[in-house]
């Protein structure tokens, strides 16, 4: 448990970064995890193929919300070309924890929203 709820994750859960909405986002995508009810809306502003602003809104468990907060922080300033190649390992590196198969869906929900929202990729296992 201490491994799952490490300090950084709790910090992002309690004080999420980039939570809210953007004005006129270029990408806005809602996704949810029907198994546990996690919800996320991911919004992006993109200029010259680079993410210049990112925000998320949603509700759910600490893992899904911390993952969204960490991911939005990380993708700002990155070219879409690079993000397209992101896999679950990139998210797990951000979270810095080992996650069992059930909670993996929570952790990967933001990445799933990113891939579906930008490229229309239905990649539930990221």
């Amino acid at each position, binding site marked *: *448990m201490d491994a*799952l709820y490490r300090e950084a994750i*709790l910090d992002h859960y309690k004080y999420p970064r980039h939570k809210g909405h953007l004005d006129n986002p270029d990408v806005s995508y809602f996704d949810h995890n029907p198994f*546990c*009810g996690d919800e996320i809306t991911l919004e992006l502003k993109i200029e010259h193929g680079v993410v210049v602003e990112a925000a998320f809104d949603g509700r759910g*468990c*600490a893992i899904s919300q911390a993952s969204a907060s960490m991911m939005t922080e990380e993708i700002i300033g990155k070219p879409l070309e690079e993000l397209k190649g992101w896999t679950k390992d990139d998210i797990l590196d951000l979270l810095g924890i080992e996650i069992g198969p059930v909670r993996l869906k929570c952790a990967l929900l933001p990445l799933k929203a990113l891939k579906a929202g930008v490229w229309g990729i239905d990649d539930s296992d990221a």
Partner: protein
Amino acid sequence: MKSIEAIRADFPILQREINGLPLAYLDNAATSQKPLAVLQAMDDYYRLRNANVHRGVHTLSEEATTLYEGARGRIARFINAPSSKQVIFTRNATEAVNLVAYSWGLDTLKPGDEVLITQMEHHANIVPWQLITERTGATLRYVPLDPQGMLRLDLLNELLTERTRLFAFVAMSNVLGTINPVAELVARAHGVGALALVDGAQSVPHLPVDVQALNCDFLVFSGHKMCGPTGSGVLYGRRELLERMPPFMGGGDMIREVRLDGSRWNTLPWKFEAGTPAIAEVIGLGAAVDYLTGLGMEWAQQREHALVRYAMEQLERVEGLRILGPGPEQRGGAVAFTLGEIHPHDTAAILDAEGIAIRAGHHCAQPIHDFYGIAASARASFYFYNTFEEIDRLVMALDKVHSVLGI
């Protein structure tokens, strides 16, 4: 009467440790643990008597058939069915509902007909009826809930009409724990000429069930929630209905005669058991029923009632905890709750670290959660082998959830 310690010793898994702590298994509404007697019955079948049933004339096949059909007889007596021919083996309660929906429902329902279910159903007693009413043009209606988690029976006069062909309802809610007045609801359905299907997935494992006293037309339940193995389930049906209903699945064992221009069906119950059944699992379920009968279902019900009453008293002292559903007098051994704004998955994960297994999610009953305006809940659910100490550990661990998540 056996002591709780002796009963717990019958269940090998209850000796397990999780994260260095004794397992407190409080997820019995999802599935129960299995006593040695069940494991041994299945092991004995595979080691000594494994053969297909109803086919061979050799010794093993005869022994396997005797065990398989013997289990049917014991399960029939367990629910006081008039005949073992009215006990049909399915994979689980879900398949049993689907059997009725696809066999009776497709054959019977027409536009203008209505099927009545309730807002507290498990998805297993919602989705088959959505599928079948859509295909037949019949209408699906729901008995709503009141804020205490009881059915709005005051609306039954409007909802149950001469258009209603079937009233399908849960005997005990897997989320709210609510115990519905089954015999009364069956009588109300019969009063308008409708059939009554009872979802006994949570009631048959936990309290005495007598299909003749309830007078229900169908009863469905799952073996794995009552000390039996997964893959074993039961449909009980009134004989003349089962006789009239067409087969659900076609294949071996369900036929009397197969010709290229058509086939004739086997008699009950085999008409509804196409293909090689779950032989070991059914034998295991027979052993589970013997085990439960040995303990006594009245005793099991009283034991769980004492556990749930104590649990509700203790849980109400946890800060921010809100229990869904009625008080202990009207419920069985399932207690679903929310803990402030904390997501149930986080609650369950932190409890797991303390060796405590509970369920988190919508428990396959999304309409109940929609009614309360929540996405999910946490649920502790008890069986006779649980202890008051396990409930104390649950309450202490819930206090810890607050300190870990700090909200």
